[in-house]
């Protein structure tokens, strides 16, 4: 079945092509467009499942070795090698031949002799001549997980979107972009080399741009899409540099080649900046851009201007985790650089706490979820930074489930509320939207980290690994920040639940002043009249004045018309304000239910080692366990090899392995008592200290589990206190902590800072350049132009009166003389012209045979 994985990216592309190219021309119905899009993704999903099953569980002899489609003949030489040999010709080729011969000789030599020669050979071997990049897909444990996430969660979201986007004029366009996105994302995660990853990387960036700007007639959406695109460019620049570095260093872009070579490089400890550190830095800059990490996170919250399914698919479940995929894919390189591991961990932790604190004060339901996503991505990077790449991917997976669920739930709420996104105008929706409420509840418990739900397993493992890491110093700090961020997460998620689903039904009385209104975009699409005093030409979406009263409740839902303070009879088919919310159609809540189920049980594939007394094994479930499944793609710095397939000692897991066997022990293991590993001594280690105090590994793990549970509980209780039991508290505390509140509410003024430091400076520079251009360059050019105009006037007059005079005289003379002849020649009859042609033919024959003819007469 693996043979057919090339179909997986192709099918959504075909669907997108059909929808995008024909959808408008042939006026496809929504049902057809949705059917094509959902069908193609569903087919991809089925193929993925079958391929992964036969790869991992079907007795595939190669597991866990990566399976490349080129093994079965599906590949083409995308960028053919030998570019150098074309340019530099025979020289490079002979050098390769020479090297081959020498290598053959070397194989017969004694080892000590060989070593002396090899160092010379490696240094000047013309590896570039062999750079050969093929387009082939790779199926290995990592890519298979991502394939399943992307197609599976994607399928749910596609189904949801058919309901959510119902009635949009750009329905076909939306699904074309979505299909294109699926294609790009699958190329990203399934490619077998860095360049394919880059193609997918840019492809998802493009689709993200297109989909954020889906309501391109809204200034806000257009700006947000440009912001996302430009911010990502910064990251992509780093990524490109890293790819160049990889090709320059390893002479190949194929993952297998690169990692095989990278294994041999020495580990660069803290403060050492070898080539692998620089490569890792570039890669991480790319990951920061795509995964919205701290300096480059600003685009993700704004990206919520796109339709909600887009937010769920691209900006929560898949695209933003591409950075995680890349870091995990290149974990060999990252693990070679302790500095970069530390940077990754600290950036992740900083992002987690930073975004979590912002999330507390936001009022737009999607904004809250967006900052939550940024925060959770920070958690994932935290896991990667402390060396627990598997757990990072585990969190990607559970996060994909519960965050997609929550975004879709938010979409359902927005849909039910008639495109109202401000949580201050919601409340009490439990009664009106039971399906949405109960599924959202599952997502809430999962993200807070309550014990059987999926989020608990991954988040707890991240915190435990942060506390017990021996690959970087400052693990305890990362743990501390992570725990606080988890508390904040629980708090703001409880706040979200309370403001949306519980409490008073504020939509009946709330003043206007909402954050975003997709309804207006819909109105634009349908060509309806805009309400309010904003001219459509301005391109801005209409806003209510703060404090403006939207209107009284209309009990009669059948003909309620929202009456604003001012006249707006032309409000058309879309109204908002006082509405009775309604439950969403089955096409929307069925995906919610599926995702809710996954959010509840999805974590069981990664039950932590602390439960070994219950489950009987550290990683129960065999290959169904994510740690066992992913271990083969993780490099082990101690053994300097990739982890064995079923051995079960990944570095974060092998607490039971005998510590004495240093050669086979993982770093955590080797470090466990001695504090020495390939990474050297890493200072204070929280887990080890606790363990020294308790003298029991199991107890230590349980202590940390209880701490994280307590943190989540505190967050939830505080949230309940503030927003359920004592609703007056938030205002009081906002007053008391006014500076902090202002900072959080204004997102720490990062956007303002960037605007001041980057955008304004750029504009100033542009203006200065423009002034230079307009004043000096244009002045020179204009002066020259004036000079040449003067000159041309003089010559023009000369030409007009003198030269033309002569020519006209001659022409008049000739005209008078010759025109009767020429006029007679132009009869207009075809036969005459043909006669002239024959005459010409005759002349041609005569000239051609002139010599023969003359000789005949002589």
């Amino acid at each position, binding site marked *: 079945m693996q043979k057919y994985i090339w179909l997986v990216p192709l099918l959504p592309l075909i669907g997108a092509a059909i929808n995008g190219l024909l959808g408008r021309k042939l006026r496809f119905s929504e049902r057809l467009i949705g059917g094509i899009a959902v069908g193609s993704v569903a087919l991809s999903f089925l193929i993925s499942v079958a391929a992964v099953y036969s790869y991992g569980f079907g007795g595939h002899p190669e597991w866990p070795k990566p399976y490349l489609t080129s093994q079965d003949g599906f590949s083409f030489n995308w960028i053919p090698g030998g570019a150098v040999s074309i340019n530099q010709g025979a020289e490079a080729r002979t050098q390769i031949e020479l090297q081959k011969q020498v290598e053959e000789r070397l194989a017969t030599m004694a080892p000590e002799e060989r070593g002396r020669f090899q160092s010379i050979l490696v240094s000047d071997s013309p590896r570039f001549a062999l750079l050969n990049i093929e387009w082939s897909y790779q199926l290995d444990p990592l890519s298979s997980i991502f394939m399943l996430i992307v197609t599976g969660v994607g399928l749910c979201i596609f189904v949801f979107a058919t309901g959510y986007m119902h009635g949009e004029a750009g329905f076909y366009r939306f699904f074309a972009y979505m299909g294109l996105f699926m294609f790009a994302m699958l190329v990203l995660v399934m490619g077998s080399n860095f360049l394919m990853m880059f193609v997918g990387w840019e492809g998802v960036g493009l689709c993200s741009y297109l989909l954020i700007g889906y309501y391109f007639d809204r200034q806000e959406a257009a700006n947000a899409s440009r912001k996302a695109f430009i911010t990502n460019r910064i990251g992509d620049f780093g990524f490109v540099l890293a790819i160049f570095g990889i090709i320059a260093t390893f002479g190949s872009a194929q993952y297998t080649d690169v990692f095989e070579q990278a294994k041999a490089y020495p580990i660069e400890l803290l403060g050492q900046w070898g080539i692998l550190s620089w490569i890792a830095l570039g890669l991480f800059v790319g990951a920061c851009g795509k995964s919205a990490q701290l300096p480059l996170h600003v685009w993700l919250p704004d990206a919520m201007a796109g339709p909600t399914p887009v937010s769920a698919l691209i900006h929560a479940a898949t695209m933003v985790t591409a950075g995680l995929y890349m870091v995990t894919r290149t974990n060999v390189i990252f693990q070679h650089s302790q500095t970069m591991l530390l940077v990754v961990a600290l950036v992740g932790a900083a992002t987690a706490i930073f975004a979590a604190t912002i999330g507390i004060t936001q009022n737009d339901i999607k904004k809250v979820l967006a900052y939550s996503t940024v925060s959770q991505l920070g958690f994932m990077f935290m896991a990667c930074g402390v060396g627990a790449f598997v757990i990072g991917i585990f969190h990607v997976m559970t996060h994909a489930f519960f965050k997609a669920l929550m975004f879709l739930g938010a979409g359902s709420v927005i849909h039910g509320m008639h495109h109202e996104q401000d949580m201050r105008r919601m409340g009490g929706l439990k009664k009106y939207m039971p399906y949405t409420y109960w599924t959202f509840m599952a997502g809430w418990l999962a993200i807070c980290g309550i014990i059987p739900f999926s989020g608990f397993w991954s988040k707890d493992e991240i915190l435990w690994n942060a506390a017990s890491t021996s690959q970087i110093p400052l693990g305890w700090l990362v743990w501390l920040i992570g725990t606080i961020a988890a508390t904040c997460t629980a708090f703001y998620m409880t706040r979200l639940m309370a403001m949306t689903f519980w409490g008073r039904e504020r939509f009946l009385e709330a003043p206007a002043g909402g954050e975003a209104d997709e309804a207006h975009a819909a109105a634009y699409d349908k060509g309806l009249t805009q309400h309010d005093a904003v001219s459509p030409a301005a391109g801005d979406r209409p806003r209510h004045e703060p404090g403006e009263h939207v209107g009284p409740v209309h009990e009669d839902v059948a003909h309620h018309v929202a009456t604003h303070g001012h006249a707006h009879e032309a409000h058309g088919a879309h109204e908002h304000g006082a509405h009775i919310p309604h439950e969403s159609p089955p096409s929307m809540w069925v995906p919610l239910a599926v995702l809710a189920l996954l959010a509840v049980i999805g974590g069981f594939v990664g039950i932590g080692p602390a439960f070994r007394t219950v489950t009987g094994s550290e990683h129960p479930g065999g290959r169904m366990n994510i740690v066992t499944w992913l271990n083969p793609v993780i490099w082990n710095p101690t053994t300097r090899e990739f982890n064995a397939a079923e051995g079960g000692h990944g570095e974060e897991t092998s607490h039971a392995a005998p510590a004495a066997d240093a050669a086979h022990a993982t770093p955590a293991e080797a470090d466990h008592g001695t504090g020495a590993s390939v990474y050297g001594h890493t200072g204070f280690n929280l887990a080890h200290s606790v363990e020294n105090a308790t003298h029991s590994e199991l107890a230590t793990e349980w202590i940390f589990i209880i701490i994280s549970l307590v943190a989540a509980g505190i967050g939830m209780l505080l949230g309940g206190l503030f927003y359920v039991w004592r609703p007056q508290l938030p205002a009081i505390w906002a007053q008391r902590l006014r500076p902090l509140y202002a900072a959080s509410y204004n997102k720490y003024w990062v956007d303002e800072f960037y605007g001041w430091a980057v955008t304004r400076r750029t504009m100033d520079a542009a203006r200065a350049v423009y002034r230079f251009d307009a004043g000096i360059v244009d002045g020179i050019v204009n002066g020259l132009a004036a000079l040449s105009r003067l000159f041309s006037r003089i010559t023009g007059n000369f030409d007009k009166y003198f030269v033309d005079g002569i020519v006209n005289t001659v022409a008049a003379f000739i005209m008078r003389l010759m025109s009767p002849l020429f006029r007679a020649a132009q009869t207009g*009859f075809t*036969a*005459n012209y043909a*006669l002239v042609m*024959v*005459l010409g*033919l*005759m002349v041609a*024959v*005569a000239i*051609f*045979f002139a010599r*023969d*003819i003359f000789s*005949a007469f002589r």
Partner: protein
Amino acid sequence: MTLSGYEAVFFWIFGLAAIFAGLLTVMARNAVHSALFLISSLVSVAALFVLARAEFIAGVQILVYVGGVMVLFLFVIMLVNVGAQERGREEIFNNQRQVAASLIFCLLLVGGVLYAVNRGYSGLQALNPRPEGTVGQQSIRDQSHPPSATGSSRITEDAENVGASLYRYASLPFEIASVLLLVAIIGSVMLARTLRQEASADDVAPEVLQDEIATDPTLPQISAD
């Protein structure tokens, strides 16, 4: 290449027939007669093709020219020459000066070309003194072909060879030729249809059509409806 025996006899029969039929084509008063003479000329040339061992081209000549193109000609003659009976007495040639000049030029060309052919052929023989296939060799080669179903003739490999080299050496021109034919089909359909047909095909804006009808006095049958 040298023909001999009955082949030579047939060569002269068909060659002269081609020339005479061609002359009559040009000189016939009635266009239908012209067409019929042209058909016989083409058939004669096809026979010459057979004598030159190009059986496939001969078949194509018969099928395409005689079967297709000439039928087209006859159709058009019938479409156009409605009033041929009334115009029967009209002059069929252009004015005398044109005809005279043409004939002079043509005679000169005949002389030049015939001279050039003889000179050129002797030069060619001097250039390529290799003996041409004798009659005996030819008949032996022909006999080596398998007999056809009726047993009365031999199947040559001509069509096979032409087909093979058509696809091997001239596949791109072949494709281009197909496109050319497509363009010709579409073009002739577009050229030959009436304004009424254009209107019924609905690719003329009605206003344009109205204007056309209003301003064009040569369209009485359309302005009627």
